[in-house]
């Protein structure tokens, strides 16, 4: 599609005021750090990794799952031992196009099988015996938004904010729909109060802190809404909440909003019984949407700007349970997507089903190494101060 044609079909022509900046950004071949975007997709509830990426040549897998195993002739084969759940044609296409990287066996030492606790561990990037009160992306925001007055660099597409996005001094913004949030802040009373001039010491004074948060929320909502009007995607996204959320993200990215990190959740993957259909539905939603999203960004010329990551708080046990489901387990895979992946395809060894820890997979990659790589190599920040430790980089970007 030629650019002019693209502009016409996307309705961009109406936003005449904003076009010059927008086009400039698009023509700029060299990516500056501020253009780089990370999208984190949280698979809530503990996605069953072994029925997502299936070791279809492994008898141990079929022995452990007589009822719910996915048959060899059904899987979407990635290589001679691993294949995707048949609901994941979108991921298969992205794999074939070299835009997917799969890291197996990601976890952490002394894994916790409670949803809450393990999710906290992933979201705060803590060890399993420590309790952190801030999230890893919140601490990224602390670094990034030290003196800024609009915390729009980190955005969650939801009504409430996850711990992952809460920093010590700054907290990300959460909203499902830029227009709705903007509408809320237009409420006369809220708007008048937000104009309250903050002169005091918000570091120590909680009243000042509340008014500052209010003012930032109102101005951030206006900024995001105004900027988001620049670009409306002409692509059709799947008609479910996750599809809508990803469309919102694509539009915000292409519109040039200054957000570097988007966070969105899909769930619930807590499949204790009758797992097959439920999980297939969710994986289908995930896979088709990510494919549409990546293709949409290709159209708008932003595909080099994004890195997308999926994670879940844990995988599930190797053996199925008596109800046609699986119970809480440990290590799991992470998917990464992007046009600039250094290592494409399958990053490391397949899960070892003959070396289990009390019926659970052993991890070989600490998720904090993944975080550290992304923070340093993609978002170009001081990852050690964010993670509190030095974690070796991986080579996927």
């Amino acid at each position: 599609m030629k650019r002019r044609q693209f502009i016409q079909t996307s309705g961009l022509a109406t936003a005449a005021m904003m076009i010059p900046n927008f086009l400039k950004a698009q023509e700029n071949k060299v990516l500056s750090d501020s253009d780089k975007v990370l999208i984190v997709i949280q698979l809530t509830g503990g996605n069953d990794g072994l029925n997502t990426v299936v070791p279809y040549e492994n008898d141990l897998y079929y022995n452990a799952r007589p009822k719910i195993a996915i048959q060899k002739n059904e899987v979407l084969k990635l290589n001679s031992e691993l294949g995707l759940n048949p609901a994941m044609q979108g991921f298969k296409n992205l794999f074939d196009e070299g835009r997917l990287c799969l890291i197996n066996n990601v976890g952490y030492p002394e894994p916790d099988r409670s949803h809450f606790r393990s999710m906290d561990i992933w979201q705060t990037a803590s060890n399993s015996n420590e309790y952190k009160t801030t999230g890893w992306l919140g601490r990224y925001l602390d670094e990034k938004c030290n003196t800024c007055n609009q915390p729009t660099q980190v955005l969650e597409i939801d009504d409430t904010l996850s711990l992952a996005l809460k920093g010590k001094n700054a907290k990300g913004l959460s909203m499902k729909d830029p227009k709705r949030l903007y509408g809320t802040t237009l409420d006369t009373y809220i708007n008048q109060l937000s104009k309250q001039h903050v002169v005091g010491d918000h570091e120590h004074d909680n009243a000042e802190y509340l008014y500052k948060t209010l003012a930032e929320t109102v101005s951030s909502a206006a900024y995001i809404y105004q900027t988001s009007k620049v670009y409306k995607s002409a692509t059709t996204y799947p008609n479910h909440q996750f599809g809508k959320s990803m469309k919102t993200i694509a539009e915000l990215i292409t519109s040039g909003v200054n957000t570097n990190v988007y966070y969105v959740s899909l769930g619930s993957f807590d499949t204790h019984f009758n797992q097959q259909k439920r999980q297939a539905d969710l994986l289908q939603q995930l896979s088709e949407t990510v494919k549409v999203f990546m293709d949409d960004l290709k159209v708008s010329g932003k595909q080099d700007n994004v890195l997308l990551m999926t994670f879940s708080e844990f995988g599930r046990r190797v053996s199925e349970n008596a109800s046609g489901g699986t119970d809480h387990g440990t290590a799991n895979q992470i998917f990464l997507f992007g046009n600039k992946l250094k290592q494409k395809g399958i990053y490391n060894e397949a899960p070892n089903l003959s070396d289990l820890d009390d019926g659970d997979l052993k991890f070989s990659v600490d998720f904090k190494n993944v975080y550290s790589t992304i923070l340093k190599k993609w978002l170009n920040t001081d990852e050690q101060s964010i993670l509190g430790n030095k974690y070796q980089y991986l080579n996927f970007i």
Partner: protein
Amino acid sequence: MLTENDKIKHLYNRAGFGLNLFDLKNKTDWQKACNLLFKSNSNYKKLEAITLTEVQVAQDKMKNLDKEDKKDLKQLLRENVFELNNLWLNEMINSEAQLQEKMALFWHGHFACRSINPYFDQQYLDIIRKNALGNFGTLLNEVSKTPAMLQFLNNQQNKKDHPNENFAREVMELFTLGRGNYTEQDVKEAARAFTGFGFNKLGEFKFRVQQHDFGNKIFMQKTGNFSGEDILKIILDKKECAYFITKKLYKFFVNDTVNDAVVQSLSDKFYQSNYDIKTLMKEIFASDWFYNEKNVSVKIKSPIELMVGMFRTINTTFVNTDSNLFIQRTLGQILLNPPNVAGWTGNRSWIDSSSLLFRMRLPQVIYYDKDIDISPKEITPEMGTQQMKMANDFVKKLASKKLNATADWTNVLQLFSSSKNIAIDIPNTLLAKKADAVALKAIQINADNSSLQNQIKSIVIETMSLPDYQLC
């Protein structure tokens, strides 16, 4: 210096969940009001949502979850998750024993714990409420023997040959001493001493002799064949424990910014009193520094404090009590369901852009019946998947609707009808400290002046929508 009335207001904001409007008129003597908080609660009642038999029947049913028909499950769900929560919330709103319930909320965050077994939750809640103003050592010992806590911290798996250190570690890190006051070796040895601490199906503490490690332990430079109780005693003998608890209490009841000299002196007295909680709290609330302006209106209300405070001012009932749970979930504090053993972080962690906007809209959502227009995150608690699904479905349904509250405004209207300047009197009454000019002006501009009643109601609602109302 605060006036007598302002002192009473501050006291009740912190030692309780705020003055109700009846008290506002009747409590005029600070000394009397203070004494009243400490009067022993002869009306103490255990909160009971479920009997042991009911739990056992339910557990049997749970085993055949697939066959369960929905109606029974729904019933079960309510009993399990919501009812105890609601009962306690009602106590906070209506009970005269305000300090007891506020202290219990503190201990709930301190000994943070949740259980899928509502009977265990009920026992645990009884212990933290009953001992709320009692002896800390007793409280510690009793909580350490509740099935809820032993289960939550995996002590059933702590056996002579396979020690599980979770319980022992949290006892020291979070319940008594804090990091830096014990070693990893102490954790290991304490875990050995706690082997055998378990419970049976009837919810009774059981010491399992076969699983206990009777060998010698070296704990905090002491050597002996220590039991779990011995370990707790050795910990309580350390002054660091008194300091750790006192500091946490100070942050919760006085100010998140700590005055270390004050805490040190309080802590010494706490230790000398052999951990008598009531003595410590009396010392705090009777002191001059507690009423210093720098300690007034500086605490950010937790979601529970916010809700309970509103309902103490306006008598509010929901058509469906699940609305209570909806608010708790959206604002991030569910009673009997803390995020983890470290409890709620508190202070500024309550406030982000979306939670602040929802807090500011909440009075209108409740009292003007506005659309909720927000939904909290799905939960995946450790309850049956079917139950979880129903809880989530319920929230999704509610998100597009209203909270359906009935408000009894009688007391509010009575109190303010004779007021000369309601646009100033109401904010000054309901806020922890006097409202500033900008807020007063916004209130005035937006008030509904169509009748005196509407004017009073609208000003109350606007006041409760202020950022300043988030403080106490």
